[in-house]
């Protein structure tokens, strides 16, 4: 009987051993080509250099692929004890697999009829982290196990533990214990206290569920569990545990990625990735020097935040509308360098960059390009008189278009400068109708506008979407008196040895003659002095400046775009879902009320302490005061006058008074000033 029992037992054991050997051999043969090669040195895994991005004022604004690999000696012994205690208490005794742990995990899983316990050793976890995907399947598990055996056979325990501590994920974007110690406690890994070490050691198992920033209670439960494990494994005494539990955790505030520089950084990365590929940026160990001025960016962020908070209290909105958003781009005129780029109210809330990707209708902000085309192509000047009257433009294959003025009133005869200052829609529509849509589009392209522009008369009122980025750049051509500088974000790129790999050179192109552009610049100064943008002066902005407001139908978009001699800035305000911005009283938010204040706050800060710089007046330009209704030098009948800047050859004298006989013959002509432009709809 005993003999038979022994034989059976022997047979079972022998069969089991042979079975294990057979299974492992078969698996090896089957998976041999899928098993990865191991590196010569585990430190090799941390060799990739980070890419650093710098602002023009010398700030390091972003580091990509930053890792902080440290030696085991630089890690608090509390942490190494805690991680061993909770993750793999037999770490120093096994060779890749913990028999007891495995049997315990199998038994627990069998009892609970689900995978409740992993039973993976630290070596297995390292194997998974280095080489394998995170999907749970048996084949992956076996490969992971085989590689764990090889890791154990190749490296000593200290090397494995060090690599593990530098690789493992601790939640909140922290890879490695050093980075985790910095993110959660703002200190080095070697300075962690027992309580802090226990908390961190509890994270790799559930980096999100036990994250102390979002689930503090759960994190503390897990910490207590870790401390308990340490006591039961004789890694610490009960007294030490109790003392740790009574100590302060000193958790710091979470590092929120609300840095407004990140809109700019994203754009820089996108540009480089597009030109050189993702690997170049993320694994190149580059130093990217950008045009961003962090002071300007900070001003932009604060200006937008403060004014938006003010507007949020006034505007009617629903929860689904989301917050009121703003975008701002500031371009240095002389070079095209983008000094500030704000893509939204709060980067942590929304990473969508509205300053480059959000083409919203610019409204009247587009009118300067229409006026300039008319002056260039039709010989108009700021003193040319046009008639503001009801207008209907026939459109082939569609209903005729009847543009309306913002205030639903008509000004009658009016000089171009005044029309732009008052942002009269009818005049803009008349001008595009006369000069032709194609010519306006061509002019806009010369100003650097690249977005698709609709070939219809309503383009005159800014119905084709533009980004603040291109509007700021286009307006800088006006400030530059015709020189177009391609806007750019990257000054130069260096490799880790300091060799320059890319450099930006200025490509200033004189698109228009200064004497052609100056009249427009002067008209836009008028907008700021006494036109729709006069809020700029009312708010106390004293530097010489020009600009233009923009408000679209139903107050969906509010723009203010303006420039000084040195810098051009475009500001947009609106809802992401295109909802009208209306106050409780029913009054809509305009470019002047919603966007211009942000522009003023920003520009005031940027120009603080700087002397006002006047725009240079080109040769062949003369200044004159003319009658607003006739466009000629004022006479005793003039009701309203305006100062204009026109080319020297523009005659501003009224035609000579005709004799009675002539008067009778030419009555029709005299019914309007000779300077009046008869624009046929």
């Amino acid at each position, binding site marked *: 009987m005993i003999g038979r029992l*022994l034989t059976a037992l022997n047979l079972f054991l022998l069969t089991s051993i042979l079975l294990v050997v057979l299974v492992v051999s078969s698996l090896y043969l089957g998976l041999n080509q899928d098993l990865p090669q*191991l590196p010569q040195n585990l430190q090799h*895994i941390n060799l990739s250099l980070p890419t650093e991005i710098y602002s023009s004022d010398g700030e390091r604004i972003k580091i990509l692929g930053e890792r902080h690999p440290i030696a085991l000696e630089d890690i608090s012994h509390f942490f190494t004890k805690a991680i061993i205690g909770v993750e793999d208490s037999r770490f120093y005794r096994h060779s890749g*697999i913990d028999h007891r742990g495995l049997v315990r995990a199998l038994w627990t899983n069998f009892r609970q009829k689900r995978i409740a316990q992993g039973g993976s050793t630290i070596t297995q976890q390292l194997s998974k982290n280095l080489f394998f995907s995170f999907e749970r399947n048996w084949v992956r598990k076996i490969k992971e196990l085989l590689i764990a055996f*090889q890791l*154990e056979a190749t490296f000593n325990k200290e090397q494995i533990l060090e690599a593990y501590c530098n690789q493992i994920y601790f939640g909140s974007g922290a890879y490695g214990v050093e980075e985790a110690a910095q993110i959660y406690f703002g200190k080095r890994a070697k300075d962690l206290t027992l309580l802090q070490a226990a908390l961190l050691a509890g994270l790799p198992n559930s980096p999100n569920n036990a994250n102390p920033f979002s689930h503090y209670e759960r994190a503390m439960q897990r910490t207590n569990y870790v401390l308990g494990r340490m006591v039961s494994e004789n890694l610490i005494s009960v007294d030490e545990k109790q003392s740790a539990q009574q100590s302060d955790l000193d958790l710091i505030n979470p590092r929120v990625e609300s840095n407004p520089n990140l809109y700019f950084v994203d754009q820089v990365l996108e540009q480089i990735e597009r030109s*050189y590929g993702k690997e170049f940026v*993320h694994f190149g160990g580059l130093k990217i020097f950008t045009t961003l001025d962090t002071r300007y960016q900070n001003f932009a962020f604060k200006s937008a935040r403060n004014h938006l908070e003010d507007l949020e209290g006034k505007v009617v909105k629903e929860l689904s509308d989301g917050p009121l958003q703003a975008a701002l781009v500031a371009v240095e005129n002389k070079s095209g360098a983008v000094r500030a780029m704000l893509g939204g109210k709060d980067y942590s809330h929304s990473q969508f960059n509205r300053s480059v990707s959000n083409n919203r209708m610019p409204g009247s902000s587009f009118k300067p390009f229409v006026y300039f085309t008319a002056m260039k192509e039709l010989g108009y000047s700021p003193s040319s008189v046009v008639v503001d009257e009801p207008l209907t433009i026939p459109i082939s294959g569609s209903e005729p278009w009847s543009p309306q003025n913002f205030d639903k009133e008509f000004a009658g005869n009016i000089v171009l400068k005044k029309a732009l200052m008052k942002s009269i829609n009818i005049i803009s529509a008349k001008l595009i109708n006369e000069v032709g849509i194609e010519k306006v589009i061509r002019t806009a392209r010369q100003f650097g506008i690249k977005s698709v522009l609709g070939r219809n008369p309503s383009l005159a009122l800014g119905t084709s979407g533009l980004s603040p980025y291109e509007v700021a750049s286009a307006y800088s051509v006006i400030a530059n008196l015709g020189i177009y500088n391609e806007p750019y974000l990257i000054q130069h790129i260096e*490799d880790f040895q300091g060799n320059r790999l890319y450099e930006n*050179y200025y490509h200033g192109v004189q698109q228009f003659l200064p004497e052609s552009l100056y009249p427009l610049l002067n008209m836009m100064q008028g907008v700021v002095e006494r036109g729709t943008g006069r809020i700029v002066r009312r708010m106390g902005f004293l530097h010489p400046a020009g600009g233009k407001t923009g408000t679209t139908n139903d107050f969906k978009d509010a723009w203010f775009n303006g420039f000084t001699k040195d810098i051009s800035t475009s500001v947009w305000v609106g809802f992401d879902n295109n909802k009208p911005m209306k106050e409780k009283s029913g009054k809509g938010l305009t470019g002047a009320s919603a966007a211009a204040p942000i522009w003023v706050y920003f520009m005031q800060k940027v120009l603080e302490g700087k002397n006002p710089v006047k725009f240079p007046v080109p040769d062949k330009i003369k200044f004159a005061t003319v009658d607003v209704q006739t466009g000629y030098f004022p006479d005793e009948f003039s009701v309203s006058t305006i100062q204009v800047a026109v080319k020297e050859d523009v005659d501003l004298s009224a035609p000579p008074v005709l004799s009675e006989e002539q008067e009778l013959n030419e009555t029709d002509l005299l019914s309007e000033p000779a300077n009046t432009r008869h624009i046929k709809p």
Partner: protein
Amino acid sequence: MKFTGVRKLWHGVASLIVLSAFLSLEFYTNLFEKSVGYYLKWQNHKRPQLGRMWEQDRQSLVAQAKIKSIRSSLDLQEEATLGIPSFKHLFEDISPGFPLVVSREKFLQLYYDFPGQWSERIISSYDLIDLDSRKIWDRVLIKRFGPWITLQFIDRQNIPIHELFISVDTLFEVQATRTVKRGTLEESNFIANRIFPISEFLPILKSLDRATQKAVFPQPRWFLGKNYHVTRVGISDFPAGKLSQHLLFGVEYDTDYYTGVLLVPVAMELANNIMSQIEKADLAELNSDEVLSALGESP
């Protein structure tokens, strides 16, 4: 029979002991895992570089390859720039859409290496001193747009500190067409009876007014500074390329390694004038020889 049963039992026990010993060995020494681990280690080099870690490594290699390629391309550009032989070539090598960047040192070297005053007409040396006094001039960016060439004197951040425009026509000015060639005057198609020793030419050069001197001959420093030993001069009997109203004045010099010729286009009337003066001097010399001979003082 009983003895056979005991023997079987004994065998069973022995087998159990062996198997238990084997299991204990595995349990305490991890024999199995170690065997597999060492076998895999032995086979390591045969396996592919797969997985997340190697993927990162590969991406890093791709990035480094890209950096290397950019650097070698930039190095080539720099070498090409360093190899520009003359101030004139500097402008002639510019293609529209492909700006050229030269270091301050190279620009100055080419500027002062030009045998004549043409470089001064592009930018005066006093203006260069003015630019240099700001201590930020780092490089010169040269671009071509249609008939215009732009010179931007830029700082380390590529911000222009001075900009000037020159017309492409400037490259075809008489002063600009001075060239240097290897070889002798004869190899440059000068004929023997229009080639003269420098000693014969110098008295005539000294007798010319300053403007004409400059038009014919570069600053002597150009030769002396380079250790060029001027030996002969020549006047061509063919027009100077596109300049049909000009002849070539050639200055031959020896260096330690080769013989070279500086070709200077000069106005036809000036060339003829020099030619006649040289011939007159030859004639005078010849006459004085004849007089001396008549006096019986000839050896």
